[in-house]
């Protein structure tokens, strides 16, 4: 039996297209979702920068808030995945990041989290920070902390998407 080292979760490295029904298009939608998470992180990062500039420039607070609110979707997505694989990882003593999607892996690695309880706690902390920022009760440290998280998510999404756009790995430039 052939053993394969882990392949990119979103790419199709099979050279033999015959026999691979339905593969490529399914990846495209996964890559699309990865782009969407990255965009949410990127737009929220820009919104935080706008908040910092608020004393120097007139900014549209409504837009800033709407972009920041979408971080909730990202945090919920991470929480859902933790719920789905957390029990497996905890029960069998597997490092959670070893069986995570690239987005969740980035989050776990950023904070050095190995189990689902710690991951959920960290998500709750980020939720709290986000709530404070949205209510205008934030301090610089909180903005820095949220920025760190968002930057990591944005970078991972971009790296993964760039990897998939390279002709050697790509699924859509055949």
């Amino acid at each position, binding site marked *: 039996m052939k053993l394969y080292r882990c392949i990119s979760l979103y790419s199709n490295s099979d050279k033999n297209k015959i026999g691979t029904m*339905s593969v490529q298009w399914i990846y495209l939608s996964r890559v699309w979702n990865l782009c969407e998470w990255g965009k949410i992180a990127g737009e929220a990062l820009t919104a935080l920068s706008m908040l910092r500039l608020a004393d120097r420039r007139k900014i549209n607070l409504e837009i800033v808030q709407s972009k920041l609110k979408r971080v909730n979707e990202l945090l919920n997505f991470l929480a859902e995945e933790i719920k789905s694989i957390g029990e497996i990882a905890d029960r069998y003593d597997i490092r959670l990041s070893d069986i995570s999607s690239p987005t969740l892996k980035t989050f776990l690695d950023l904070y050095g989290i190995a189990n689902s309880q710690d991951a959920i706690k960290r998500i709750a902390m980020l939720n709290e920070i986000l709530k404070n920022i949205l209510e205008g009760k934030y301090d610089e440290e909180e903005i820095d902390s949220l920025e760190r998280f968002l930057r990591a998510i944005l970078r991972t999404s971009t790296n993964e998407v760039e990897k998939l756009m390279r002709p050697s790995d790509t699924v859509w430039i055949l």
Partner: protein
Amino acid sequence: MDIMNDPLFDGIISLKLEFQELKSHIEVLTLRYGRSILTDAITSKIDNIIKDVDNLIDSYQNIMQVTCDQNQYKIFEDRLMLLKGQRDILTVFFEALNQHLNIINQINNKEILKCIENFKKDMITLANSHISLTNQEVCLLYSSTYKMTPLLADKGVFIVAMPIYDLRAPWYWTLISHEIGHIFHFQKSREVDGKLLPILARYLIEKAPEHVKRSGYVNDFIQMWRYHWLSELISDLFGCALFGASFTTSFISWLQKVNILEIENTHPPIEARVFVQLKYINEICPKDMVKLCEQYWNTLCRSVKDPRSQLGYPFDYEILEYIVNVFKELIPDPPIAKISDKILKIKKALDAERIEREEPLVMICGLAISEKKLELREDVLKAITEDL
């Protein structure tokens, strides 16, 4: 910062033009071939992205006029890159749509296309108690292979494709049901994964051979099951739930190869895929259908399989059987039960070189398992198209 002389800004405003260009091509297709739910869905997706690009332009102008911070610049670069990724993905679907529309306009025999479209509709009606398509439609494109994407699901469309070269091989049309199976898995993934992933993980950890444990492959296998293999097996079983032997025999014929035990990154070995189908068919189909599939599979195995080799970790028979049992709970009343007798009757008539009238879907399924499929293909298609 001089934003008018910045490659990043040029890139962003060019990207907006590029999306507008893509949209105008969709409009040309709409003018030429008519409006469809698919053109509307792609257009709506492009409109959403154009709004995102506008937002990027606004934020860039707001921020870069005040600060030249390198970190800010990198954030905008990354945002641009992600939007470019989405541009490339949408272009793939524009190309697919363009190719599809060209194909259907080039084909003289429009009746065959109508036959396939009706087959798809009937198949969805057959499956409708198991997939939820209240506000969604399944669009079938003619393309390079069998595939599916939920990319436009938020716009009310699942895109499914079949290869152009199978238009006149109606027994392969049943393979579209595998793609509908991906829609089923997409909609039920939480339930399916919730029931199966913990068991799969336990199996993969507890049954891992020593060399696999040492080399650290166990987690990779968990990932592959989670992201690829489970979805393929569920979709195969869904195909069986709809068409029984008419799916499995076409499946074997289409995917046959010398190495039936080979594991692909994205697909389980053919032997594992057929094993689950045979197990399932044995539970839900009449004996004649079971026998037919087993004989068909054994003919291939006798020629290509080394009798000493068999499936093993990470596709042991017991875990495959477990998947079949869970699938049975997911679909307690498989649609094939309603049509299997009719399919077998049609097959019997075709084998005797008689063409009996039935619903087109049943006739195609009967043809798929008939010994005379090659000889009677045109006659069956003719009988179906006469009723159109």
